Structures are given as C-alpha cells and as structure tokens.
C-alpha cells in the first residue's frame, strides 16, 4: 500500500467534511446577516417606537381598560365586604338568614358614610331593575334609625326578603361578571343557574345588532352598485377627464361628515329638494317621509361611504391592461365572458377590500343615524353613546362595544381567510 489514496469509502467523509465547512461558512454568513438585519430592524423599530408607544398609550391601553369594564365590576364586592363574607357559605337557596341581613345593614351604613351608596345602588339596580330606590330608601332609613336595631329596619323593607334580591346580590359579589355581556345579547341568568332570554319588552340589543348589520350590508351593496361602474369609467377615460372625475369623488370625501349629513337633512326633508323634484317629475302624488326613515338613512350613508368602496376598486382597475380584454376578444370571447373570466377575477380583491372597508365603517356609524334616522333606525353605536353619556352605565357600553368588536374582527377574519391578507388591496 503506497501513499494513502482517498478511497471510495473516504469520499463521502471528505464530501461530508467539505459540506460541513461550507455549512459553517454559511452559518456564520447568515448569522452575520441576521445580526446586521437585527441591527437594522432595531433601528427601524426605534424610529417607529414613538408612534407605537403613542398608539399603545392613547389607543391600546384605554380600549383594553374600558373593555375590561364589561367583565370586571368590583363595585358591589368592594362596597359589601361584610356581606360577601356572610354569604360565603350560603347555598343560594331561599333566604341567607339574619347574619347576612345584619352584615348588609352594616355595609350599607359604611357606604353612606363613605358617600359610595349611590354607586352601589346603581350597580345593584343594573342587575335588579327597581333596586336603586330601594337601596337608597334603606340607606336613608338606616341613617335616621333613632335607636331602632338595623336588623329590624332591614326586615321592614320587603325588598330585602323578596325572592330575587339575594341571588342578585350574591352574583354581584363576584368581581368578574358575565352579567353585562349577557345583557348585551338580551340574555340573563335565571334562578336555576341557567341562561335564558330576557322578557320581550326588555330585549333590544339583538334586534339593534341585526339592524346594524342590515344597514351596513345595504349601504355596502348600494355603494358597490354605484361605485363599480363609476370606477370603471374613471379607469377607462383619458387622464385629464379621469382627474376631474376623481376630484369630483374626493371633494365630498374631504368634507366633514357632519356637514354632509346636515346637507342631506336639507335635501331629504318633507319640503326639501328631493321631494320637490319627485313631485315635479310626477313620480308620486304625495310627499315622501324621507327624513327620520330607514330609506333616508341608507341614502345618506351610501353617499358618505361611496369613496371608500370606489377607491380600492379603482386602484385595482387602473393596473389592468386594456390589451388583456382585447386579447380575450381576439380569442373569441364574447364581451360578457371576457369580463367574467379575465376582468372580474383581477378586480375581485379590490371589490372585496372596498366592500369590507365600507361594511366595517358602517357598523360604527353614529352621527348620520342620530340626525337622519328615526327612533327605529338607531344603530348600535347610538346605544353605546347613550350608555356612556346619558345613563353613565359604562359597563354596559363596554359590553356592547366588546360584542361589536368581536363581530367585526370575526368578519375581518373570514374575509382575510377567503382572500388572504396580501390580496386585500386597500387603495
């Protein structure tokens, strides 16, 4: 055997050795690359940091804090520590006994002294309509007791020994509550611990959610029917004319939504321009009630939303070469077939993006329904605003917002799943 020759057996080993070396090189290169990229990413992140912090502070955290009110309500638990303790071993059946009643009396007096009796009364009232005045009445009686034992005072108010009272209080002593979320869906806990629908005269929200979705869908459809041909027209006329048409679309887009809504009230009212025109044209013999109606609301919202649907569609249409359609014709396709098989699949992402944008924006409409809609055309945002501003029941507002947010995100998720996020072309 002379000098060692690389044998067949050795070859793979050598090859392995070589590839290992190459691997190491590659690894170090990619590691260096990663390091460099990481540095870059860090720098770009640092540039974006002020914005991210601002978003988190002014947007993310407040939203989470407010939404958490929907499920976290410590008011009753904090106001009634003694009662909570006394109720610890109550089985939820019948009356909890004198000890709990006495503990509640002590808690109520403490609350009156601290000035939190109203908050407590309001919180119990949300669970048990009518409780507010009973709680405050009892508090006043306890305050002016004049030597009468607190237990006797509690027993003199029939409310505290009524069947529904104690289950409501006991449920309130839990800090985490499903009460508001259930209410937002017209549901409640019944006495046996099951979930049931609320009586029909109290049920509003499901109906309002349905209405909100219906109006949003109707407006989306209307903007699509109006926007698609207009977008096609803009994308097919010469540049100068297209610019004029685009400005015509954008001009109202730049106008305040309040101004546009107010303008529609002028147009739609009983003795307004639209009714004058219809009468002059002889369309109807009577003036229509367009204001404070579903019809008027959808007309005004369609006008406001048109650019949101149109612009994504237009931006996609602009990229489609007219030569493709000509090619389709030259290959023997009829206009409709060419449109359906060549044009439509390409504009589809734009159509979906525009419709999604409009639909989601419509779900949050507030000003236009308030000014143009009638009492039965108010959307869910109007109810949320009412709970925030007028009734001061922010828990209920949070619960409604939460449900609306979940619906919206689910819808967005479904769209994104059908289309893929990268295909959604938002302008």
């Amino acid at each position, binding site marked *: 055997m002379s000098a060692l020759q690389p044998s067949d057996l050795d070859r793979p080993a050598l090859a392995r050795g070589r590839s290992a070396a190459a691997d190491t090189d590659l690894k170090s290169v990619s590691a260096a690359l990663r390091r460099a990229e990481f540095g870059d990413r860090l720098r770009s992140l640092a540039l974006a940091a002020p914005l991210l912090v601002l978003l988190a502070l002014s947007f993310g955290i407040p939203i989470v804090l407010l939404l958490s009110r929907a499920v976290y309500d410590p008011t009753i638990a904090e106001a009634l520590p003694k009662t909570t303790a006394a109720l610890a071993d109550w089985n939820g059946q019948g009356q909890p006994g004198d000890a709990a009643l006495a503990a509640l009396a002590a808690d109520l007096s403490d609350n009156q002294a601290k000035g939190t009796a109203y908050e407590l009364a309001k919180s119990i009232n949300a669970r048990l309509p009518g409780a*507010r005045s009973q709680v405050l009445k009892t508090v006043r009686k306890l305050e002016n007791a004049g030597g009468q034992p607190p237990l006797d005072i509690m027993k003199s108010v029939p409310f505290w020994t009524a069947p529904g009272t104690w289950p409501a209080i006991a449920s309130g002593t839990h800090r985490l509550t499903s009460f508001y979320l259930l209410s937002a869906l017209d549901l409640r806990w019944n006495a046996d611990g099951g979930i049931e629908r609320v009586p029909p005269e109290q049920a509003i929200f499901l109906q309002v959610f349905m209405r909100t979705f219906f109006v949003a869908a109707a407006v989306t459809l209307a903007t699509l029917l109006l926007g698609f041909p207009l977008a096609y027209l803009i994308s097919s006329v010469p540049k100068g004319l297209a610019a004029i048409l685009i400005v015509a679309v954008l001009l109202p887009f730049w106008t305040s939504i309040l101004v546009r809504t107010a303008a529609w009230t002028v147009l739609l009212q009983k003795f307004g321009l639209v009714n004058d025109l219809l009468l002059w044209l002889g369309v109807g013999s009577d003036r229509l*009630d367009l204001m404070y109606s579903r019809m008027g609301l959808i007309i005004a919202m369609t006008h406001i939303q048109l650019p949101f649907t149109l612009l994504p569609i237009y931006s996609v249409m602009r990229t489609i070469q007219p030569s493709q359609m000509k090619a389709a014709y030259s290959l023997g396709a009829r206009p409709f077939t060419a449109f359906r098989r060549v044009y439509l699949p390409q504009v589809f992402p734009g159509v979906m993006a525009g419709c999604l944008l409009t639909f989601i924006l419509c779900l949050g409409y507030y000003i236009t329904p308030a000014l143009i809609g009638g009492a039965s055309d108010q959307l869910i945002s109007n109810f949320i605003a009412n709970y925030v501003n007028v009734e001061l029941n922010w828990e209920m507002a949070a619960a409604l917002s939460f449900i609306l947010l979940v619906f919206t995100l689910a819808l967005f998720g479904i769209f994104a799943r059908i289309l893929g996020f990268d295909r959604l072309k938002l302008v």
Partner: protein
Amino acid sequence: MKHVRKNLLALAAATACMTIGHAAFADELSIMASGGAWQDAQRKAWFEPFSKETGVKILEQEYLGDLGKVKAMVDTGNVPIDLVTVETATVLQGCDAGILERLDYSKIGPRDKFIEGSALDCGVGLDAYGDILAYDPTVLKDAPTSVLDLFDTTKFPGKRAMRKFPAQNLEWALMADGVAPADIYKVLATPEGVDRAFKKLDTIKKDIVWWDAGAQPAQLLASKEVVMTTAWNGRIQNAIDTDGKPFKIVWNNQILEYDMIAIPKGAKSPDLAYKYLAYISEPKNNAKLASYITYGPVRTDAASFVAPDALPKLPNAPDHLSGAYLVADTEFWGDYGEDLVKRFNAWLAQ
C-alpha cells in the same frame, strides 16, 4: 344615541378646556351651559353684567346637558369648569353619584325664598320654563287647544314631534288617558301605570318624530316636517320674536320645570362660583333673564322686577296657569328616571 351636535361641541369644548385649564388664574370663572338662545340670554342678563360689576372674566363653554362629560372630568380629577347648567332630574342624578358639590345656601341666598322644588341640595334654580305645544297656524287651520291634542290623530293628522325622553311624554300620555294631573305621579309609580302610559304612546308612535336638542322643535315646525311639536316655551317664543315665525303656543296642560346650575366636584374656583350664584339669585337679577328669553324667575320675591312687556309671555304668568298644568316631580324622576329611560329606549327601538 342622543345629541350628536352636543357631543361634537363638547369635544371642541373639552379641547378648549385643556388649554383653559392651564391658563386659569384667580379671577376667571368657567361656565358650561347648554347653548342656543338660552345661553345668549344668560350672557346678556348675567354673564356680562356680572363681569362688569366684579371684574371677573367669564369663560363660556357649551354642551347640551349630558352628565357623562362632567363625570369624566370629575373622575379624572381635571375639572376645568366651575359651574354647569343642568336639568333638575340630572341634578338629582349627579348629586347622588357624587359628581356635583352639595351647595351651601348661606353663600347663595335664603333658600325659602325660592319656589318650592327649585332650590335643591346640589343645584340652584335659574329659571322656570314650560314644556308646551307649538304649531304653525298657517299649516294647521284647526287650532289645538291643549297639549293633549298630540294624541288626537283624527282631528290633527300628520307628524308630531316629541322629545326623545320619557319625562313629560309619559305624564302627557296618562293625562290624555284620563288621569287627573294631581294623580299622575302616583299612577306612574306603579308598573301598571307605566304600562298604561306606554300603551297610550303606542297609539301615536308611528306619527312621532323625536327631537333631542332644544333648537330642533322650531326647525321642525319651520321646515313643515311636523304639524305640531312639544317644545320649551322660550325656544318657540324666540323663533316668533326674533325670526318672525308665525308659530303659536298652547299653554293648556303645560308641564312646569326649572333649569338649574350646579358646581361640579373639584371645581377650581368654588368661591367665585358662589359669588356668581349669589349674584344671579338676587331677586332683581333673577328677574332679568325674562327680558331676553321668556323663562320666569325662580325667586318668589322676583315677580315685581320682571319687565312688564316680558311678563305675559312667561310660563308662570297667571294667564298660562289658568288652565290645567302640572309641576314636574323631580323626586319622582330622580327615583324612577333610570328605569324609565331604559324602558323608553327599549320601547323606541322596537
């Protein structure tokens, strides 16, 4: 769902507040009122003369009466206003909720010299106004004679506007259903009474256009959107006197109420606020508002100071109390308001 314009205004006001809050110094008094002809009248009758007399600069803000804004200010501890005008039921709500300061009447004036119900623990009365019916005689040839004609759709067909709020509407519904004014609140305190009122409202529900802001009734009448509307008397009188509208007011079965002013908890200049309250509560000054808007004084000893030409237009003028009328029961609305508002909103949405 109420008050869009109000919210936008309030947003603007809030932005303004932030800047004002920082710049506030001792002799500035920040008052938030509910805008429109009423705030204009307050400016002429009280803000400007008070400024001239005391050298205190008055900073005005506008909103339309929802306590949510004030609650947010008090909760966050940044209260850029010293005084806020509110409705009576709202005073009770805000008082219970600890949003409004309990007033010290020794710094304002003799409490027993106010009309009963117009000097509350957390709010002092500014004026007395009437919830009335208004119509345009050039449209409605057959003149209504009572607010309760709202419910007569055979004699007065067409849309009618009512305030999007249960108070007043439930009272009128019961009156129209035959309940005597003296028994209204007794009946309304029972579940059957509430059902009865809503059943009566049901009969005209499809004919009702709802208004939120005090300026809307006059607009709705002017645009002929409705044939009749409930309204606050001063707003309609203002449209008649300054805009030359041909509207008429029906006083029979009016509901009398008081506008209030309150100090939010944590106000920066409570002493100046009390000074202002004392100023406007003087009988002579209290009567002055009537010259600028047709709302009556709340001091029992102020009647003699009311300008003679303003007197016959006030809601509490003898002529306007000759028919049936009702004084709104603020205690009742304090106790039952929240539940009735909820029921009312559910009823509206259905």
